[in-house]
């Protein structure tokens, strides 16, 4: 969805407020939100789905909330949904219990998004010119608005990764090649003042088409 979270290129938020001595957590509740979010993440589906919950927060709430407030809203939305499902299914007692050993393993070993199944052979090679598709899906996507319909160059091939646009909606991981794509600042913003500046963004193969098609 084209939501306020997709804010690359907006210039209406003023200067960066940099505080050198900022604490990791300002309040105890922030630390708890972090701990609960990490601890319960396996309850609420893949990361892509959990990101999409944040994207659906109303614009004013999104902008006026701090980061951990948005996370708190996500937890509340997700738990409201989960309890509603459980009540409906009358499985009140059957909430999954989180195993600390498993969780600790995930924290230190991660949950990689690369896959050995799916499309393993990249269509594009480093140096290829591509154009991003101009798509405006109503659901989750990681094709930021500011790089839609723009021409760029394949800079790296990251291997085959789970595809957020389907994974977020329970439509399968649809694993496919992921690329780092380079765009010139001029292509994205029309600026000619710094002709050598570039922006790199990671894009899945389904977002791209060969330039001359």
């Amino acid at each position, binding site marked *: 969805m084209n939501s306020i979270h997709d804010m690359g290129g907006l210039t209406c938020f*003023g200067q960066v*407020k940099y505080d050198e001595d900022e604490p990791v957590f300002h309040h105890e509740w922030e630390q708890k939100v972090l701990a609960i979010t990490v601890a319960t993440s396996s309850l609420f589906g893949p990361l892509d789905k959990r990101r999409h919950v944040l994207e659906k927060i109303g614009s004013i709430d999104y*902008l*006026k909330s701090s980061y951990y407030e948005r996370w708190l809203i996500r937890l509340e939305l997700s738990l409201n949904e989960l309890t509603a499902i459980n009540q409906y299914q009358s499985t009140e007692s059957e909430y999954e*219990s989180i195993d600390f050993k498993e969780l600790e393993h995930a924290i230190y070993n991660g949950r990689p998004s690369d896959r050995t199944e799916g499309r393993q052979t990249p269509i594009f090679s480093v140096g290829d010119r591509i154009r991003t598709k101009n798509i405006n899906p109503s659901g989750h996507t990681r094709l930021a608005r500011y790089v839609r319909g723009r021409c760029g160059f394949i800079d790296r091939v990251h291997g085959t990764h789970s595809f957020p646009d389907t994974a977020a909606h329970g439509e399968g991981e649809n694993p496919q090649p992921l690329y780092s794509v380079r765009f010139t600042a001029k292509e994205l913003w029309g600026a000619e003042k710094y002709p050598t500046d570039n922006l790199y963004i990671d*894009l899945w193969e389904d977002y791209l088409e060969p330039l001359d098609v």
Partner: protein
Amino acid sequence: MSDHFHKHDQDTVLIKERSEQEIAGLTKRVEKLEKFLIQKGIVSKDLLESVANIYENDLGPLNGAKVIARAWCDPSYKKRLLDDATKAIKEMGFGGLQGEHMVVLENTPIIHNVVVCSLCSCYPWPVLGLPPGWYKDPAYRSRIVIHPRDVLKEFGLNLCDSVEVRVWDSSAEVRYLVLPERPLKTEKFCEEDLVKLVTREAMIGVAKAKDPFFSET
């Protein structure tokens, strides 16, 4: 008669300091979540405390600084780091959630790399810890992709026109770490001393590594 009308903050989304009352409200909401999760047997209080503890004490920019300092001192490690950052960082004992697929970007006198996540706030937790507030705020996320040089100036970093700026927007699960330039005249510094020069900001790319000979007076 006063001729000053209602003042308006024209250009910022300021995450304002919360009042005591607001903090009490937020605390209450979090406690409700916590109580529910514990009562239903989903998590225990111990488990939550252990997780909080990991992120408070185990992860942080010191990990990244150790990686960078070693790369400065050990050319073969630097090569491995640039070739396969995930593996080279694992060598140092760091890895995990939000660091599954690492790429290291080398700054040089003519190339300056800077990292953002414009769509949310993706950040390499195992090497940098949890992200600072400004990294997650709209001002940084929206403007670094279009006006990187202006934003870097706000951090006190003025780049020459001849330097190529490379902005990396981490839209997938690949996480980027900047390898800053080693400060001049630090040939005799040991790795441990170099670690102290590597700030979080330098590894995001909004600053250079600390100059040990720089004095503010």
